[in-house]
């Protein structure tokens, strides 16, 4: 049977939103040398079945959206990061050491339904 297409305006669809994390807001600027913060971003938006294929979705997301439409108990596909990148941080620790460390998956580069 035909599945009703939910109404979602373009701005409500799953996409990446800008979010800058400023270490000063956390009070961490006292020990983090660099960077001052980073563009972490986040994913938010709807993943309607009709657009699942066009929203950078996994095959599983497509199946889940289909199942969700047929069975309301199955949750909708959700908007999640699909590509992340690392950041490097230069900071002082409690022993007055200077540390350079890399953290994987800190910045959301792309979002999609999953």
């Amino acid at each position: 049977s035909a599945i009703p297409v939910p109404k979602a305006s373009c701005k409500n669809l799953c996409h990446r939103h800008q979010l800058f994390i400023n270490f000063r807001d956390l009070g961490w600027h006292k020990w983090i040398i660099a960077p001052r913060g980073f563009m972490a971003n986040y994913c938010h938006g709807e993943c309607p079945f009709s657009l699942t294929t066009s929203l950078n979705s996994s095959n599983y997301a497509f199946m889940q959206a289909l199942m969700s439409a047929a069975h309301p108990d199955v949750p909708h596909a959700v908007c999640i990061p699909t590509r992340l990148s690392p950041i490097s941080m230069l900071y002082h620790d409690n022993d007055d050491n200077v540390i350079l460390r890399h953290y994987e998956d800190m910045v959301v580069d792309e979002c999609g339904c999953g």
Partner: protein
Amino acid sequence: FQFQEHVLLQFLGLDKAPSPLKFQSVPYILRKIFQDQEAAATTGVFQDLCYVKQLGVRGNVLRLLPDQGFFLYSKKLSQASSCLQKQLYFNLSAIKEKEELTMVQLGLDLGPNTYYNLGPELELALSLLEEPHVGGEGEGGGSSLPKMGKMLALQSVPWPQGVLYFNLLHVAKDWNNNSKKNLGLFLEILVKGHRDTEVNFQPEDTCARLRHLLHASLLVVTLNPEQCHPSPRKRR
């Protein structure tokens, strides 16, 4: 929702938010690695976070440890030409058990590179300490020299000086396996003489300048196997 700072700090590998008392200057190499990685992340270039290409070693955490040792002013110097004696000590406790040491480099900064302040040729001796030094520290302190172990380096230091580097990987691995073995290092700088005999130099001035400018630090690169997979075996 309550902001759980400690959870976030644990994720970053810290027990609590640091409150540094002394601010070490960031050496050029750490600044360069940081800037290169930031540039690569911005342009989306793939980067192996477990390999430090600027140093040519595997590793994902770089630490610059400050020297916590002190100058020794023994009343009876081992040799008349002795210019400076110092115990060097680096606290390796920040290195977690699961981390594997891949590079340990001692940097001895003897002052800026300059041709304007030509001085005498120096000789530098670096040894392991075998017993903790007792008898006080600082000026007017102990009268005895600490018990020295294996000599790690003996080299002449022509002017201009700048930074001298020493590979201490094996020494630091030994210290890391048994922290009681880490009693520090003994550094002695001797005045060898002057290459130009016509120049009238004062060794006291050179030694005083060295004591003022000397800065030691230990660059430690470690690899956390939980965050980095072993490097692929090379094909024969």
